[in-house]
């Protein structure tokens, strides 16, 4: 039996230990905001937080996260920080097909909560593990920049 929390809810499962956290989230919990892209940790579409750290859920065997606190894109959607990113991405035109966006938003949130006023280089580094095949990234960088400016105070370290 593996026990952990997912978006604040306690999960107990007897799924095999090698099941990928990504598959568990999508297929058992039906939380389909988290996407599968490459399945090899290179595209970031499956990004989630594990104990507040950005991680690729396609690389996590569920048996390794006993006791961990897992948060998906659904788990942050009610937050002020998410609203800030949502508006900024819309305003900057950072979303086209949208497939990378849940992962991109998770990476953006991870970056801003560690570094509320990132430089452009730091923004690019923060999303360097997330591939987007539509925007060419510039609008996403603009979106994060805007979120940092508009969200002044929101992202301060607690």
């Amino acid at each position, binding site marked *: 039996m593996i026990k952990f929390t997912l978006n604040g809810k306690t999960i107990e499962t007897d799924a*095999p*230990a090698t099941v990928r956290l990504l*598959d568990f989230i999508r297929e058992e919990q039906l939380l389909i905001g988290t996407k599968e892209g490459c399945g090899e940790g290179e595209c970031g579409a499956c990004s989630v937080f594990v104990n507040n750290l950005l991680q690729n859920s396609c690389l996590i*065997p569920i048996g390794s996260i006993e006791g961990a606190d897992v948060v998906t894109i659904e788990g942050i959607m009610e937050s002020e920080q998410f609203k800030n990113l949502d508006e900024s991405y819309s305003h900057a035109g950072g979303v086209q097909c949208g497939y990378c966006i849940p992962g991109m938003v998770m990476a953006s949130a991870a970056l801003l909560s560690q570094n509320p006023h990132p430089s452009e280089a730091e923004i690019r*580094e923060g999303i360097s*593990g*997330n591939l987007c095949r539509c925007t060419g990234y510039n609008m996403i960088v603009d979106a994060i920049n805007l979120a940092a400016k508009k969200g002044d105070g929101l992202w301060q370290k607690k």
Partner: protein
Amino acid sequence: MAEKIIAYRFDCLDQTLSQLNKENCAIIAGGTDVMVMYKSRRGVPPKIPKPIVFIDHLSELKKVYQNQKDLHIGACCTYSELLGNPLIPIVLKKAIKTIAAPAIRNRGTLGGNVCNASPAGDTLPLLYVYNAKLLLRSVKGDRIVPISDFIQGVRRIQRESNEILVEIILPSVLDDGAHVIFEKVGNRNADAIAKVGFAGYIRLNGDGIEDVRFAFGAVGPTMIRSVAIEKMLLGRTVPLTDSDIAQVVAAFDKIIKPIDDQRSTALYRKTVALNLLRYFLSMKQYQPT
């Protein structure tokens, strides 16, 4: 769910070691290599051919401490943890920052980079020039092995099935006044496997070379290092003459034998490797003014 999957996640290292002594298992630390190596199609768990032992949560494997001038790094420290640790040398942090991207650095471990023994392992050139030693532990006790003996070939390591890599030890790395550089050449900054990796180490006494070491990654089955070539430079003075530099480059030209693959060509790799060597040997930063 068809076949039963056996996986262990013990609370302490001792229990883990006694299980490993009973049963040959696949060890998973961060899992960022293992999960890709055994990847199945979407929705199907990776097929790992042995029982699994998870070790990344074990606090015994996450310590970083100084012992006199030696630095001991717990094998299961993640790259991000090392980036945040003031004891880790800046040049090693530079190498770590070239690995993958933040999300993988939050999971991947230094011990994993060593035990995966990839020819392109990003931290390996530096660990070789630091003369890193590896502390391996089993129920029978500890042993310490130089990294160059431990890594024997492509994904081949000298680990007994009942052993766990506990620490990577960098001897005399703190406060020894050496100048160390690391360079990686890849297709892009993030998520790139190295075409060439290079680490250079030099320690001067006045303007005389007291110690010098070079290691090349991704240009052979394991890191290329030659103590014989290094010895040629001992006692020479900096700035090195053009003929000194040419002599060292020619010596490495003979032993660096890269291959063509989908990432790069042998010719490109060799040219870049020797250029990096030449660049290091003619660097001004470490030379007395």
